[in-house]
């Protein structure tokens, strides 16, 4: 079989290790096989831990292949080894094959082997050996041989998969994705520093706190005997004049997404109820994955979503749905944290890739929503956020709604206005940004016509006949947003910046307080550079929020009030956020 590469060596590698929630792995053994020569390396225990560098070539002449490589790279980092120059992660490439196809969401090695009908390579007795690896040492001679054999089975299966997949994939893009998997391992190793003492204090009192939280937060008596009452919530909405989408049955649509959207536009009336609902129903503080060194570490699940974005476990990751718990994030002594997010990333991408000059001008104005209202003639050209808050808000909702393919009906509900007014806003958007709309039409034509769409670096989403046009139309923005953040993080790691976590279109970085300004500026420069590459010269700005020891992280807009309520209830007023 002719393989689509020109590497001198291709090493397929797998490790077995003990992995506990939130901890750095304890490496047991490694098996590596060179694909062309068949050369095999099997190392166990000290044979492995005593060597300073990998026992195979990791220069640009060779290719490192693994299935879900962050696991392997976490072992590299534990062992103090350098990471390879070129990585091909077959998990990512298999995920790519299945992107947009719906159906089965299993992307493990066995699923990939079955897809390529390589079932005769399928590893067996997996559970027994996996449990042994989790149990950890000391191992008997028989157990050592068994673990190595089990590890070799995975290597052989991955080798057969590599031979099959290498011939069909476009290597440069795969190598870019592979480099990001190294960044994932670095971020997972770094983790997010937490105030573990305070977290334990709250966890210990969490059950008792729930009732007190309802009493404290539910000043409007929406809860009845500890349960959320839809009827009472409906009455409350009427009292505060907040419109709410309904299901076909006429009932209120009480999904997390609706609560999230409404919380943004109603931070005082709805957001506390959102935090309360999530906290009472789904939040398991003890489920947060925190290591013995006080850092939140969890699998970041890169490329898990169809857009190619990371999709870490919402219960284990500190940046899950409950915003108030982010108050537990705290840099250690002498350290700072900076949350840096792209300014209006999605709008900027749409403006740049569509080539719509007026949308680009709106983005660059710093307040695209007000600029849009000005361009549409809805407010005078000297209008400000302060002088025309309502118009700006309506044009903001419209601009965001368009990005998500929302129609007039949904927009009317979102705005609490008539369909006539929603249609008028949508028409204003079409009139103001016609080049963007033509681009959007071409996306749909190509998506449904060719059957797939690709981002700048080839993250491809299949478009099936029953795909939702809104998600198809939004794919280039979301997919390229994901590409941009991946590239920015790769650049940050090239610049030796400690990245603690990716958060949608943002990153949390960490460093020494003395170097905070320089490090943040460098990180922002990486983000800017990444945006210029993805958007062919158009650059996106970013905003940084820096918190230095002994202060803690706070999300200014979301969850701050709820955090203070919880702190008040546990008698830790000293931890209050200044709101």
């Amino acid at each position: 079989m002719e393989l689509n590469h020109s590497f001198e060596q291709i090493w397929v590698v797998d490790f077995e290790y003990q992995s506990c929630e939130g901890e750095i792995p304890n490496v047991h053994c490694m098996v590596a096989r060179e694909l062309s020569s068949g050369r095999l390396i099997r190392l166990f225990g000290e044979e492995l831990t005593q060597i300073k560098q990998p026992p195979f070539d990791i220069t640009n002449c060779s290719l490192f292949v693994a299935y879900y490589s962050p696991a392997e790279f976490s072992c590299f980092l534990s062992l103090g080894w350098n990471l390879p120059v070129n990585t091909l992660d077959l998990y990512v490439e298999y995920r790519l094959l299945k992107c947009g196809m719906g159906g089965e969401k299993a992307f493990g090695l066995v699923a990939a082997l079955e897809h390529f009908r390589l079932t005769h390579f399928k590893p067996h007795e997996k559970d027994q050996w996996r449990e042994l690896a989790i149990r950890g040492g000391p191992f008997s001679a028989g157990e050592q041989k068994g673990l190595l054999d089990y590890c070799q089975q995975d290597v052989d299966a991955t080798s057969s998969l590599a031979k099959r997949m290498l011939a069909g994939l476009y290597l440069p893009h795969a190598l870019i994705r592979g480099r990001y998997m190294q960044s994932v391992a670095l971020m997972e190793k770094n983790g997010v520093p937490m105030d573990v003492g305070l977290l334990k204090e709250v966890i210990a009192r969490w059950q008792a706190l729930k009732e007190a939280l309802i009493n404290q937060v539910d000043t409007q008596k929406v809860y009845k005997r500890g349960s959320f009452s839809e009827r009472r919530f409906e009455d409350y909405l009427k009292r505060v004049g907040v419109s709410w989408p309904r299901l076909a049955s006429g009932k209120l649509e009480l999904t997390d997404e609706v609560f999230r959207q409404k919380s943004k536009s109603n931070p005082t009336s709805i957001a506390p109820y959102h935090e309360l609902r999530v906290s009472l129903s789904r939040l398991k503080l003890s489920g947060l994955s925190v290591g013995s060194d006080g850092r939140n570490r969890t699998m970041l699940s890169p490329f898990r979503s169809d857009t190619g974005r990371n999709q870490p476990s919402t219960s284990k990751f500190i940046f899950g749905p409950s915003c108030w718990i982010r108050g537990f994030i705290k840099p250690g002594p002498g350290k700072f944290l900076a949350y840096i997010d792209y300014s209006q990333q999605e709008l900027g991408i749409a403006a740049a890739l569509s080539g719509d000059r007026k949308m680009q001008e709106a983005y660059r104005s710093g307040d695209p929503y007000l600029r849009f209202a000005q361009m549409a003639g809805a407010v005078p050209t000297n209008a400000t956020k302060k002088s025309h808050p309502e118009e700006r808000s309506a044009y903001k909702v419209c601009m965001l709604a368009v990005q998500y393919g929302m129609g007039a009906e949904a927009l009317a509900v979102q705005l609490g206005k008539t369909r006539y007014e929603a249609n008028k806003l949508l028409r204003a958007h079409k009139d103001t940004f016609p080049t963007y709309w033509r681009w959007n039409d071409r996306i749909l034509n190509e998506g449904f016509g060719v059957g797939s769409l690709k981002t700048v670096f080839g993250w491809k989403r299949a478009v099936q006949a029953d795909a939702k046009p809104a998600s198809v139309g939004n794919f280039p923005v979301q997919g390229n947003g994901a590409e941009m953040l991946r590239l920015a993080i790769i650049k940050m790691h090239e610049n030796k910046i400690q990245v603690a976590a990716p958060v949608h279109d943002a990153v949390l970085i960490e460093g020494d307080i003395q170097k905070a300004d320089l490090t943040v500026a460098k990180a922002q420069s990486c983000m800017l550079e990444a945006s210029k590459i993805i958007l062919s010269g158009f650059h996106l700005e970013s905003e940084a929020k820096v918190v230095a020891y002994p202060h803690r992280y706070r999300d200014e807009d979301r969850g701050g009030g709820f955090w203070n309520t919880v702190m008040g209830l546990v008698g830790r007023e000293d931890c209050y956020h200044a709101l």
Partner: protein
Amino acid sequence: MNKNTNSDGNQVANITDPFSNLEAFKVSQDFNEFETQIDYSNIPLRKPGKQQWFRAHPTIKLDNVCFLEVDQEDGRPESFLLTSSVVAGLSDLPGFSKRSIRLCVSRPNNSPFVWPIKMPRGSGSKHDEWSKSAIAVADLAETEWVRIQSDMVLGAYKHITANAGWEEPVWPLLDIGEILRRSVGEQHIIGSADHPVVRELRGLA
């Protein structure tokens, strides 16, 4: 140096280090893989709605197109296009009229329609005022987005011009013959004096 093609089919070099020149490996985001064109199987034959902003095509227009308007039991008359070969023999029929055909599009979706404006007879009658004013509005709509309103006191149409700076209209890429065929419909074209509709009007059917 390795040779390979990128995912757009272009030759690129140094495949093993995409980071040395990321630009070379980019996929275009223009999404112009293929040309598309909107087609309209049916173009309505009607006058502009009261609430519609519309434009008229400056060249796709035709005067003196002959129609026969036949009353129906439901009160809505049905229009038939007369081919030139039968016009001479049918001009005496009730419902016969000459029209100025204008291709128009309405906002916001560039929806096309054909406006069949009755030609003024030059008789100075009140009908002529409606026809003349309609033609004047259609002429203006060749360069401006307009909305039409009936003014019963004036006995003519008046118009409102938009100064919103909207984009120029996008027109269907069809010739006048095809536009007429699609707007009138094959079943509404009378090409013979033996047509059942004609025979009925003449009391022969």
